[in-house]
Each structure stands twice: as C-alpha cells, then as structure tokens.
C-alpha cells in the first residue's frame, strides 16, 4: 500500500548552525587533548586506552551528527554499524592470526639486546 507522496521538499533534520560550530570546536578540543595525552608519557596501556576512547567519541559524534545517522532511518544504521563491527572483527582476526609471526623476531632481538 503506497502512502501519499510528499510534496517534494527536502528532508530537513539535524542541528542548527550554531550547534554545528560548537560540535566542531568540541572535536578540535578533543584532538588537542589527544595530542597532549600522546606527549604526556603515561603508561602505554593507559595511553592506548585513552586515545582509543577519545577517537571513538570523535568518530561517533561525526557519524551521529555530521552524517545525520542519529536522525536517519534505522536501516542506514544497521548497514553502517554492521559493516563497521564486521571491519573491527576482521581487524582483530588479522591481528590474532599474524601477531604470532612477530614473536620469533621479537625473541631474537631481545636475545641480542640482552633484555
């Protein structure tokens, strides 16, 4: 059953210009924080965690608000988020498959360097 067609005007959803500017400034601020964190000298595991979290926040903000996914049909969300999760799974699978290949080189290097 077809619904009555729309008048042809463009779908308008999203933030106001002022909100887009505020979001842009927030993303810039997060980038500055990421830079500071990378030079801070904190422990590697903490550093990686903080940087990944900050990047994830930026990623989500751009996808949700700049790309309007938050205001879109759920079908778009399923396609994009599903593909993204699949890409992450493939990334971890590749790392898991090939990480072991690095171990002989690492062991040899540690043996030569003495630590």
């Amino acid at each position, binding site marked *: 059953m077809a619904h009555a*067609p729309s008048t042809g005007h463009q779908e308008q959803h999203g933030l106001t210009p002022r909100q887009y500017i505020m979001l842009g400034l927030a993303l810039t601020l997060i980038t500055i924080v990421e830079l500071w964190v990378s030079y801070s000298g904190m422990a590697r595991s903490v550093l990686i965690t903080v940087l990944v979290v900050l990047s994830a926040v930026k990623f989500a903000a751009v996808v949700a608000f*700049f790309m309007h996914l938050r205001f879109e049909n759920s079908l778009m969300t399923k396609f994009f988020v599903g593909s993204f999760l699949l890409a992450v799974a493939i*990334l971890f699978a*590749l790392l898991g498959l090939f990480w072991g*290949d690095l171990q002989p080189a690492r062991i040899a290097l540690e043996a030569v360097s003495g630590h």
Partner: protein
Amino acid sequence: MAQAVAHGGGHVTSTGTSNRKLMMWIFLGSECLFFGSLIATYLIFAGDVIHRGVGPFPHPVTINGEHHEGILDIPLTSTSTFVLLMSSVTMVFAVYGAQHARPKMMKLSTLATIVLGVVFLGFQAFEFATFYHEGLTLGTNLFGASFFVLTGFHGTHVAVGALYLASLLAASFRRNGLGHEAGEHMEIAGLYWHFVDIVWIVIFTIIYLIPSE
C-alpha cells in the same frame, strides 16, 4: 511485506528512504572493511619493522642500546588533521545551505570544503616528499609499504571527494542549480566527505599518536 513509502524528494521507495542515500551508506560500509584491512596490515607490519630492527621507524625507538629517531612529524600532521576536521564543518554548512534553500551559503561552504581538502592533500604531499628524501619509500621496509598504501589510499579518497564536490559546485551554477533535490545531492556528497574525515581520525590515532614501543 515492505510497504512503499514516500520520503523527501517525492520518490516512493519500498524502504521508506532514498535509494541513493541508502546506496551511499552501503558503499561507506564496504569502505569500512577496506580501510579496516589496510589498518590491520599497518599494525602488523609496523610492529614487525621494530622487532626486526629495520628502519626508518615511525616513532623514536631504542634497539640494542642505540636510539633511533622516529620519522613521523606529529605537529605537521596535527595541523593537517585540524584542516580536515574544519572541512567537515564547512561541509555540514554546505548541506545545511542546500537543504534550507540558501544557495550562496551552499556554494561558499562547498568551495571552502574543496579548498581545505586540497590544503590537506598539500600537507600529505609535503610529508610524502620529506619521507622520500629521508629514505622511506614503498620498498624500504614493511612500515614504509603499509604506511604509504594506507595513507595514499586515504589521500586518493580525499582527492576523489574534492573532485566530486567540485562537480556539484560547477553544476550549482546552472540556471536550475542542483534542482529540487539539491539537499539530497549535497547530503550524499557530505556522507562521503565525513566518512573520509572519520577514517583519518582513526589513521591519525593509530599511526601518529600511539607510540610504537
């Protein structure tokens, strides 16, 4: 059974949303897989270079008591990251202008996005040339190979995006501009551009910010 539903633009589709917009989202999903595999390859190979002690290295590293400086220029790339981020902001204004029948805003913002994208490419070209002169090429080591392939493909995507936007900008100067679906045309282009930006967000963090050791 899916019902035919009208959406903005007047076309009736079975999904209730624009087929063209859906196509772009599906394409971007495939691009996630593409860049995900390139990033994984970089992570594996860059680490291997350090463990084998074969430079140049991405970040400062000490091997066998000998300190090696990293080749990556963080301040330079931070600047180019800021430029690309600002291009996303101008892109959003271009889409806003198209959707709210403000052609001047749309045209100026599109032009600004193109300019910022080209500036980003200029930074990339400068970085590539510097690395070449410092001895890092596609064939130097696995870090060089994976780095240039990953960032090269991203740069190519930026260049294609700039050409895409330039064609829309040129079309907007016709008598009827981009037509009554100008908002959708710009929105679809915006999706591609923002995706290129978020891929760079990931690349910048993984390659430049996270130290090797």
